[in-house]
Structure formats: structure tokens, C-alpha cells
């Protein structure tokens, strides 16, 4: 809920906004499938849950934006819808994940459901949720603009280390068991590096959505992705612990 967020809602390019909101539905459906707020037995129910979650996100965003005077009734309808719509996406993700976070319930079925592909998806969703809240801010561009190559390399190393340690070494609840067949090297390749790759890709996608990529050179873009990849990696790691 930053100034950039609600202003972006109003001023953002139409194509990006439509792709962004439409693209949220597969993510919401996937999340409902792996950690949804009710018993999700069939893929059709997961889609239903995604739609409900967007609705919940939309209504709560509308109420909060109205109470905070971020939308007013004398605004153009399109502007109001845009402002609420962009905010409804993270709110919807929150709605899907809330039950799991708040009850902390262990769901054996769901755990089994999370295959390797599923785990990668969850990492992407976690990265998206965090990246999305930081990406619109001016600070991302400011930080990236003064960083040198040495800073970037250091930040990459720290991101990867954090991701690895968070998921495998620290004893959080819901921690992944390291599969017996996989040694340190395999684990590192399969999960940590894959996770960091996902964090970077998600960062780039989010930067594109928020028009941070327009007119930006490739080197600056890479630096921005690394900067945003740091919180995104945190999100990826934490998502796997929650679900």
C-alpha cells in the first residue's frame, strides 16, 4: 500500500494491467490447490476458489482504499476500478494463504500434493507476493542505480545463502525434509539454485509489469533484478515453509 502502488493503478499501461490481473488467476488457482482456504478437491474448485479470493481481495481493497481516502466517489469509474483492481491481486493472494497462516494446520494430503513442480510453483508464488510489494517503489531504482558489479555479486551470494539456509538448515515448522537420495550438491542445485532462478524471473516479470524496464539498459535491469531478487528469494523460501 505505497503511493507508487495506487498511482500505478491509475496511470499504468492498459495492456500490462490487464495481463497482470488476468495472470493473477492461475496463481490464485494454484495457491488454492496447494494451500487453499477450503477443502479443494478438484481443479474446478481451485478455479472457483481463485475467483472467490479475487472477489474477497477486491472488496477488502475497496473498503480500505475508501477509508484511507485513496479513492473518492467523484473520481472517474475507470480510475476507481484500476486502483482497486491492482490492489485486489495481493489482497487475493493474502486471502488464499490466510487460512494456512492463521491456523497453522498440518494437512497431510496437501503436503503430498506438493510435488517438485508444485514446490517450484509455491516458491514462485511466495517470491511474487513479496516482490510485488516492493517492486513499485522508487527505492528499487535508486538502490540499483548506485550499486557496482561488486555489490551485485555480494548480494547474489547473500540471496542464495539465505535461501539455502532458510529452507534446509534452520528448524522452522513445516521445514522440508532433505530427501535421502539427495546430497548437499543435489539439494543445492535442485532447490536453492532453482529457487533463486525463480526469484530472479519473478523479479523481472514484476519489474516489467510496473514499467521499470522501459528504457532501462540491460546492465541496470540486471542490477534491479538482483536487488528485487533478494526479498523475492526470501519470499520463495518462506512460502515453502508456510505450505
Amino acid at each position, binding site marked *: 500500500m505505497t503511493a507508487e502502488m495506487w*498511482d500505478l493503478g*491509475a*496511470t499504468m499501461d*492498459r*495492456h500490462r*494491467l*490487464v495481463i497482470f*490481473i*488476468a495472470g493473477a*488467476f492461475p496463481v490464485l488457482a494454484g495457491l488454492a490447490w496447494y494451500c487453499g482456504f477450503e477443502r479443494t478437491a478438484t481443479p474446478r474448485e481451485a478455479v*472457483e476458489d481463485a*475467483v*472467490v*479470493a*479475487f*472477489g*474477497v481481495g*477486491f*472488496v477488502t481493497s475497496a473498503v480500505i482504499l475508501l477509508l484511507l481516502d485513496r479513492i473518492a466517489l*467523484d*473520481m*472517474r*469509474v*475507470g*480510475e476507481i*476500478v*484500476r486502483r*482497486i*483492481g491492482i490492489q*485486489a491481486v495481493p489482497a487475493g493472494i493474502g486471502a488464499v494463504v490466510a487460512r494456512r497462516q492463521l491456523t497453522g494446520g498440518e494437512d497431510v494430503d496437501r503436503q503430498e500434493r506438493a510435488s517438485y513442480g508444485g514446490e517450484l510453483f509455491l516458491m514462485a508464488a511466495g517470491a511474487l507476493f513479496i516482490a510485488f510489494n516492493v517492486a513499485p517503489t522508487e527505492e528499487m531504482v535508486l538502490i540499483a542505480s548506485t550499486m557496482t558489479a561488486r555489490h551485485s555479486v555480494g548480494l547474489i551470494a547473500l540471496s542464495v545463502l539465505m535461501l539455502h539456509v532458510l529452507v534446509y538448515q534452520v528448524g522452522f515448522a513445516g521445514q522440508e525434509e532433505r530427501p535421502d537420495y539427495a546430497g548437499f550438491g543435489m539439494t543445492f542445485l535442485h532447490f536453492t539454485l532453482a529457487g533463486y532462478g525463480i526469484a530472479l524471473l519473478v523479479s523481472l516479470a514484476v519489474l516489467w509489469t510496473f514499467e521499470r524496464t522501459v528504457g532501462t539498459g540491460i546492465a541496470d535491469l540486471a542490477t534491479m533484478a538482483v536487488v528485487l531478487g533478494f526479498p523475492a528469494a526470501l519470499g520463495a523460501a518462506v512460502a515453502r515453509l508456510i505450505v
Partner: protein
Amino acid sequence: MNRRSARRDEEQNRRRLEAVAAAIGAVLAIGTLGVIIYEGVTSSDRPPLVELQAERVQAFEGGFLVEVAIRNAGDRAAADLTIEGLLNRGGSTVETSEMLLDYLPSSSSRRGGLYFRNDPADYELVLRASGYREP
């Protein structure tokens, strides 16, 4: 009512509630995308066209305040829009004031104010937008 039918009722209520929640969600989702696309299709992509109107002049200890309504009649948003107010008399400018508006979305209105030391009623008040950047 026996226990089994009570459970069936409960199940039916839950289903109905789910259907209603899903329907509301679907309407909001399709409506949101619809409004955004409709606006894009119908707009002709004109640059920000700023219309200014002095609404009210208020006198206070430090001078005078002119409240200004700012409207963007174009189809694109303006960022860091600067607005100037000039008090002219006989072809020369006696006083200028300016304000900066951080965002002005398309087809939208905002309000602001310009302060003057002289009474705008004694002069010709000229309002103009002097520049913006693309958001």
C-alpha cells in the same frame, strides 16, 4: 428433523454460499478487466490536455489564495505537472505563483491553490500549465 437431513441442509447452505461468493468474484473480476479494456479501446490516446479554472479567491493575512480546479481532458496521465498563475496588468506581469501536481490521471480532476501577495481582483489573472513528464 433428524440428524441426517440437518447435515444435508448445512451442506446445501454451504454450496449456495459458495456459488454466491464465486458469482460475486466472477462479476468483479470480469467487470474490472472489462472497464480497463473498454477505456483503452474507447480512448483515442491524446496527450494530457490540462484545463484550468480559478474557482474562488480568499483573502487572508499573508495575501490572497486562488483555488484552482485542474482537469485533464486528454487520454494519458501527466506526472509532475507544473501550474503557473500570473497577475498581469497592461502587458506586464506583476506577480507569478506556481504549484506542482505529482499525478493527474486522464479524464480526472484535482484541486490546488496559488498564493499571491497582490489582490487578483485588481489584475488580470492568467492560469497556465507549463509542463509535465510521462509517468
